[in-house]
């Protein structure tokens, strides 16, 4: 066996020791959660201070003034906080769903809307707007309810097409079905718009731009059970997502139940997206820009990327909404336009940088 023995002493043998041992994952996780969590909380506390009426932070939290007389506190908590909170949960949901779907599809360019969920949601919303459907359900008013139904319907169609009992999902069927369903629903949306009158069409278009102005806390509370369920599932996924993004078969030989993880990932991200879209409309680019930015900062390990993206997504969308409220004040820019204007060029830059 001399041919092989000789290579043992050959090239490649300038072997430097592993300089710095990698930082333990536990320490990285704690640092990440503290840092990004702080960023999200601080953003949410600062955002309500910005607006047409200037208010002071110290007066808002001045306990000596009763809430009834504390105008600053009322503006902070009643007028502006619901919107900030909506931005935070929607941003967190879309960014996390983006991370999960990118790993599921093994495609860094996937977004929460790739699988047709947003188009289904939009169709639901538009039908509710145009035909004034008077259905409501618990805390949901007609439009958010129809949105949710549309989103879940679209997700179920894609899911049904891409799964076979006991088998791993076909990610290419998932992608193709999602993209096709997106354009099919978009055509239906155009058709409904074409048949609608001008006011309805304007409302529809405005809804499609995305809007966080939800008026009170109750829509957020209504979406919360769905979001909590989705996030509970997200928390179980990260290490499996790492293995899945390296290769499905490889993951299976390392003890991952691939079919189960794929299903959980699909259902949880569809739920989170549906809840987010029913709250605020289809706000684009959060689900792709945030995960990529976060990966540039913390690396690609999903156990770090997922929590970091949730917090960063919250901060990002709240900040974008502050820009949307103030940049052309008193006129408000739809927040979806702001995220797209920031996100579009960034996305192109990412693409160019890759090739």
């Amino acid at each position: 066996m001399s041919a092989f023995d000789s290579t043992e002493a050959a090239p490649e043998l300038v072997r430097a020791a592993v300089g710095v041992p990698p930082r333990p994952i536990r320490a990285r996780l704690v640092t990440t959660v503290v840092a990004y969590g702080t960023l999200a909380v601080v953003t949410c506390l600062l955002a309500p201070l910005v607006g047409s009426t200037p208010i002071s932070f110290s007066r808002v939290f001045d306990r000596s003034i009763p809430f009834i007389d504390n105008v600053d506190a009322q503006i902070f908590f009643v007028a502006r906080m619901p919107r900030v909170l909506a931005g935070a949960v929607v941003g967190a949901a879309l960014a996390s769903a983006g991370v999960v779907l990118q790993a599921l599809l093994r495609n860094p360019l996937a977004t929460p809307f790739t699988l047709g969920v947003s188009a289904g949601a939009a169709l639901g919303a538009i039908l509710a707007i145009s035909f004034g459907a008077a259905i409501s359900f618990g805390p949901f008013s007609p439009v958010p309810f129809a949105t949710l139904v549309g989103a879940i319907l679209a997700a179920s169609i894609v899911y049904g097409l891409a799964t076979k009992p006991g088998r791993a999902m076909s990610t290419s069927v998932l992608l193709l079905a999602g993209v096709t369903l997106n354009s099919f629903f978009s055509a239906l949306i155009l058709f409904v718009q074409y048949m609608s009158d001008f006011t309805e069409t304007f409302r529809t278009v405005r809804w499609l731009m995305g809007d966080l102005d939800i008026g009170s806390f109750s829509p957020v509370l209504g979406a919360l059970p769905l979001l909590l369920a989705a996030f509970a599932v997200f928390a179980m996924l990260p290490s499996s997502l790492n293995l899945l993004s390296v290769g499905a078969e490889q993951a299976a030989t390392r003890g991952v139940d691939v079919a189960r993880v794929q299903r959980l990932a699909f259902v949880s991200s569809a739920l989170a997206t549906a809840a987010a879209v029913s709250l605020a409309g289809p706000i684009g680019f959060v689900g792709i820009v945030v995960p990529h930015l976060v990966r540039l900062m913390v690396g690609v390990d999903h156990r770090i990327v997922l929590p970091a993206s949730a917090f960063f997504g919250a901060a990002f969308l709240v900040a974008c909404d502050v820009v949307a409220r103030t940049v052309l004040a008193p006129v408000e820019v739809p927040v979806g336009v702001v995220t797209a204007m920031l996100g579009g060029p960034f996305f192109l830059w990412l693409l160019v940088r890759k090739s």
Partner: protein
Amino acid sequence: MSLHSRSVSFGYAHEGRDSFALHDVSITVPHKSLTGLLGPNGCGKTTLLKLMSGILTPQSGMVDLSGRDLASIPRRELARHIAVVPQETHPAFDYTAIEMVLMGRHPHLGPFRLEGPDDLAIALEAMTATSTDHLAHRAYMTLSGGEKQRVVIAGALAQTPEVLLLDEPTASLDLGYQLEVASLLMRLNRERGVTMVLATHDLNLAASLCDTLVMLRGGRVLAQGPTREVLTGPMIQQLYDVEADVRFHEDAGHLTVVPVRRVP
């Protein structure tokens, strides 16, 4: 650990009909052996490897891991016994080499347990054994083909398996890297007693590395046994329809195969 397939059959459904990839395949992979799996394209090598790693389940027959039915072993436990090295690995994200290797610890951790100092030590030791420790913090995607394959092997070693299944691990590597990976496999087999199954098209690689060979043609076992007994000119002709000159190479210390001509 020894691995046996007992009368295993498996087919892929194709246009509603099952087209069989493997018919009644019974092979034996002895404990601590380095077994080569040879055969022409489409003969069922990869399918057999997938059945032996538990990715696929046989439609009839069974795979036996030291006396236990493979299908009855929970997948996480199975992954602690058997690791797989694919031909190529293309992660969707830019993991570092050490992150790739640490993923091999997955079957030893619960769903919420993060790897600790012990896991890190095992991963670094696996990287030292594959001479990739100096690459620990490099991005996997920026490594050369040979380095990538050695990192993937390190990840498989981090699973601390008793059995390693390799599907043409050197197919995309140049001659130098082929030798490097081959000598690494031989060392791991000898020093650590890892049982290995190696599917390959490279007869000279098989001749130099493997003590046992299994020859598959058309989904059936054509021959199996010690390398020096089954790696013969007539056997190769039956296997590939190629006339070959098989000789013992004094300097290399093993059989060598020179294909001469295709026979109809």
